[in-house]
């Protein structure tokens, strides 16, 4: 039987980031058929990838599906996976592109069928550190976030991806361009248009309030 000895490569446990050499050994072993090594690669990257997809699309269950699909694509590409990029970078790219496809499909579906998901009504304070705020401030913050999230939902798939990668993932524009396979100039335009669209959405809301 093939002996994987995955534990010896994960000295710091799954929570610690893995060095490039250990990762390359795991990739080689997974390629040779060691399932334990593939699972170790999944464990190392799962939180980051699910969080990335969730930040981009705003739905946890679908984010897990997208992350799973990215890992499955990694699995089928192991034979041709070159060592010149890290597994994390490869997954980042795949998840981001899958999210863009997902957002485009969702937008089309909503437009065609006036489709509304149950989780569209989720509490916008759910993932924020607002527990200690007084009731009235929580109310204002909730309404404010609802407006912002509505604005984010109205962005094009690519604008939303660029905004998420820049604001939430805090990646530099050059890296975002590489992930999305577009020029840096195009990323700048998407970021600028996203901010403009959000500003317009917020201004609309302010006019409503007055």
């Amino acid at each position, binding site marked *: 039987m093939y002996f994987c000895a995955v534990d010896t490569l994960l000295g710091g446990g799954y929570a610690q980031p893995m060095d490039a050499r250990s990762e390359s050994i795991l990739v080689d072993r997974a390629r040779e058929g060691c399932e334990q090594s593939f699972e170790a690669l999944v464990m190392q990257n799962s*939180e980051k990838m699910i969080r990335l997809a969730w930040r981009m699309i705003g739905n946890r269950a679908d984010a897990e599906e997208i992350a799973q699909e990215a890992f499955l694509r990694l699995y089928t590409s192991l034979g041709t996976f070159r060592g010149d990029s890290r597994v994390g970078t490869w997954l980042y790219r795949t998840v981001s592109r899958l999210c863009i496809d997902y957002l485009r499909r969702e937008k089309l579906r909503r437009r065609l069928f006036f489709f509304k998901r149950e989780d569209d009504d989720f509490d916008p304070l759910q993932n924020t550190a607002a527990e200690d705020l007084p009731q009235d401030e929580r109310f204002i913050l909730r309404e404010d976030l609802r407006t912002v999230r509505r604005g984010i939902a109205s962005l094009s798939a690519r604008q939303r991806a660029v905004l998420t990668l820049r604001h939430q993932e805090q990646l530099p524009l050059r890296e975002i361009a590489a992930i999305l396979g577009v020029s840096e100039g195009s990323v700048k335009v998407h970021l600028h248009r996203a901010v403009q669209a959000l500003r317009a959405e917020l201004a609309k809301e302010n006019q409503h309030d007055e």
Partner: protein
Amino acid sequence: MTNKHCLSEQQLALYVFGELPGEQHRRADAHLADCPDCRRRQASLAEVRARLPRDEMELSAAEERQFAARVAAAAQRRKAGSRLQAWGAAATAVAAGAIALAIFTPDNVTFERAQQSRQQLAEIDLVEHMEMLEELELLEMMELLEMLEGKG
């Protein structure tokens, strides 16, 4: 009132996200100090940025393990599926070859030979289908296991 030195909306957006390169950033700073109109536009974009949420999510160790196991099981299913597809394609190619042989053989002697080879090929095909059936059984078992896991 804007003038030719005023910052474009794109420059302001990049400024707000700290993405203007060094020299351009310094020039923007100097201009903003003197231009109330650009300052107002910059402030409105900075407000948008400040209002953007930072969503945080953590997976527990148990959730990570569960997810990894699910992905590994799906990977095995996909592998088995692609193997089935490959066998199917190979069997189809062999059958097509046999039919072509039977059609293009010139006389009766070769017709008999072709019939023999068709029979042999059918036997090989049956053996491969037996393996495919085993794979299908395995897949069904895995799905059943997953269903039972889901029910706890």
